[in-house]
């Protein structure tokens, strides 16, 4: 693979994504972790662009960064009562967790390496084309209408539920 700017940028995104994800799972400060997560999410969005998923990248940024991350930060703020305390992570748990995660990673890498049909599939280099219209058609008129409708119900439920549960007091 020739080393072009594109690849350089790709590796940059990949590195940023992974590094920030690593930060998310390692930094002690939850707010720092949240910001690291933001970086990760951006990184993934960038990768989406590389995969010619422009609409998806935008959605990623809007929903994740604009929505979920904000929610998380809210959550952090609302539950920060004991944040000042040092959270002591037991080393054993850390080691075991790390071990299992690593084992899992190894397994997955083995799979990736041992799946012929996933090999040698390189970017055909086709130019970025807008996908929004087609996605809109698919979702609203074609194959993905039903999931779309169901998800809307799901969102409604989540809305009601979140409101319900996080409500301060429902006692009589």
């Amino acid at each position, binding site marked *: 693979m020739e080393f072009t700017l594109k690849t350089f940028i790709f590796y940059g995104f990949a590195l940023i994504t992974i590094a920030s994800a690593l930060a998310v799972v390692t930094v002690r400060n939850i707010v720092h972790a949240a910001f690291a997560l933001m970086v990760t999410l951006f990184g993934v969005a960038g990768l989406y662009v590389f995969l010619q998923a422009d609409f998806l990248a935008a959605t990623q940024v809007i929903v994740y960064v604009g929505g979920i991350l904000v929610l998380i930060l809210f959550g952090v703020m609302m539950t920060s009562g004991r944040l000042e305390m040092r959270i002591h992570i*037991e*080393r*054993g748990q850390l080691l*075991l*967790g790390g071990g*299992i995660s690593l084992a*899992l990673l190894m397994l997955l890498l083995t799979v990736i390496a041992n799946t012929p049909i996933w090999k040698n599939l390189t970017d055909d280099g086709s130019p970025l084309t807008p996908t929004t219209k087609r996605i809109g058609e698919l979702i609203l008129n074609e194959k993905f209408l039903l999931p779309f409708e169901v998800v809307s119900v799901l969102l409604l439920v989540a809305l009601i539920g979140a409101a319900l549960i996080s409500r301060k007091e429902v006692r009589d």
Partner: protein
Amino acid sequence: MIVPLISIILLAPLAAFAIFALLGLAKRNFPRQDYLSTVAMLAALGCSLLLIQEVVSDPKPITVEWLSLGSVTFSMGFYLDSVTVIMLIVVTLVSSLVHIFSIGYMHGDPRYSRFFAFLSLFSFSMLFLVVSDNLLGIYIGWELVGLCSYLLIGFWFEKDSAANACKKAFLTTRVGDIGMFIGMMMLFAEFGTLSLYGDSGIFEEVTTLESGQIAWLSVAGILIFCGAVGKSAQVPLHTWLPDAMEGPTPVSALIHAATMVAAGVYLVARMFPILTPTSSLVIAYVGGITALVAATIAIVRFDIKRVLAYSTVSQLGYMMLAIGAGSYVAGLFHLTTHAFFKALLFLGSGSVIHAFHAMHAHHDDEHAESDEHDDHSLVHEHGSEIPPDQDMRNMGGLRKKMPLTFITMLIATLSISGVPFVFSGFWSKDAILGGVLGQAMASNSPHYYILFGMALIAAGITAFYMFRLIFMTFFGEPRNQEMHDMAHESPWVMTVPLIVLAALSFPAVNILWFNENYIEPPPQHHIHSPQRVYVSPDSKTADANSGISLFGISEAEAAEDESGHDAEHASDGHHGHGPAHTIAMVLSICVAGLGILLSWLFYHKRRFSAEAVATTFRPAYNLFWNKYYFDEFYDGVLVALTVWKSRLFAGFDLSVVDGIVNGVGTVTRDVLAAFIGFFDNRVVDGLVNRVAAVTWSAGGRIRRIQTGAIQTYLFVVIGGIVLIILIFRLF
């Protein structure tokens, strides 16, 4: 006529019992159970006498099908030959007399009616045993008489000694019965039937056996004999009989002297055709040893009933010896005479006891209290305490107070001692002695000479201890004046039977035995050795056996012997005519006279002191006094072992089997569940914690079990996934 007669014989006593039982369920009594039972018995007696005429020369069993199992059929039925009829008469006669005697003897007992009912049931069972034509029927009657014996020995069950004695009697005889049952099983397995007579009966089938095949038959014969060992109180299962004297005396007279104990003899006589030389010899030895052992024990007893009991054992041994030695008829003859005189002796002693114990406080608590702890022993120790009214040391000089009792008992004693010629006992005993000696001479086997010697010694001892009894009881001065004053002659209901029985002790009354045409010889065939000496006391032709031709198992040998022994043999069947009988008679008269003389010197004249002799021969005396330690042996070893073992088993059951099951349960419930719980709560967590042990100790925290922590669960999820994949990869 046979069937209705036998039906009456069997059903009359049964009905008497049934009426009692049915009314008993309604908690009522038949007002005169005593008369009812007695009349029933007399009816049976009458029918038995009528049967004398019915016996034909070639009897056939009369059977009904009892059980049919497809290929196999068990039938029940009667077989009526002369022996049966004589037995019937003996049983019904003695039973009737005992019934009558009991009306007086048991008078005033709170369970008076029950006593008669039990007597009736016993009579039925005994008669059933006698008439049965097959082993199964015999076995049924056999066990039923055992039951009645149990019930009657334990009649005064408030006495712990009686309660122990009845249980002991039943159990001991049952041990023998098991042997008999196994013997029956062997016969059944071989022949497929338990019928004795008839075309496919055992006696017919046994003739088809080759002589090489009879080893098992010897075993079967001995096993069947085991039943008789139990029932007829042969060594080593004799210990129950003396203890059985705890029962009322009429019971002792009827069951434990005249009939039931003789059933063993009857059984062996009945099974005569299947006895092989080996089994015969075993029987003879057991009988001989029993005769001797029991006689020696009897010498040192003071309890009047126990003397008689050991005497009975001894006499039964005699009969066994006779049959074992081939003197089939002699054995049965002695059975009959013994039944009469021994019943008489018992009833006489009952009369004495009755006299001493007019108040009939049978169940006074005097000798009951020592037995409180007996609950814990399976078989109780055996009446070392003598009831005062039975202790001969309390008696003496009774002949004037109770003349009738004295005279009748004296007649019986003379009979049993073998005083010559006028008493039936002499003839029957002589027939046995002659038979054994004849056998010994015929077979030239040292065994039978030894046995003859034993029999002879036993005869002498018998005369000795019987006269000892008479002297101690009826002669001399009263030793216990208080009791003596109380004593009185018994009422007529008790003395009349005594007189009748005394009359029966004379040979003239036992006429049937002297009629050689009436007594059928047992069937003979080639498995029998020349020991088959068929001896009739008064028959020249008694020795009508063809079995002489073979000796033992080997035919060649047998043929050789045939010629050698024929001459001697031809004559030894007849008492008084052959050399064997002559020798036997002379010897027997001598030993009897010697015994009586010694007894007279010891106990009447007091020329010698019995105590002094006892001291001189202390070991022998101890042996006799302790009855050869049989009871101690059983108690100490067998019974203790059984109880101990069963306790062990129960312990095993509780602790081990249950323990294993509970253990499995516990393992399942506790360990595995705990493990699962552990797994749920601790393993993963515990692993985490253990790995972090350094942190814990450093922090000095008490170990905190993080149950319910969600991340534990997640560890399991992810770990599970990895595990499943890895496990699968391994396959």
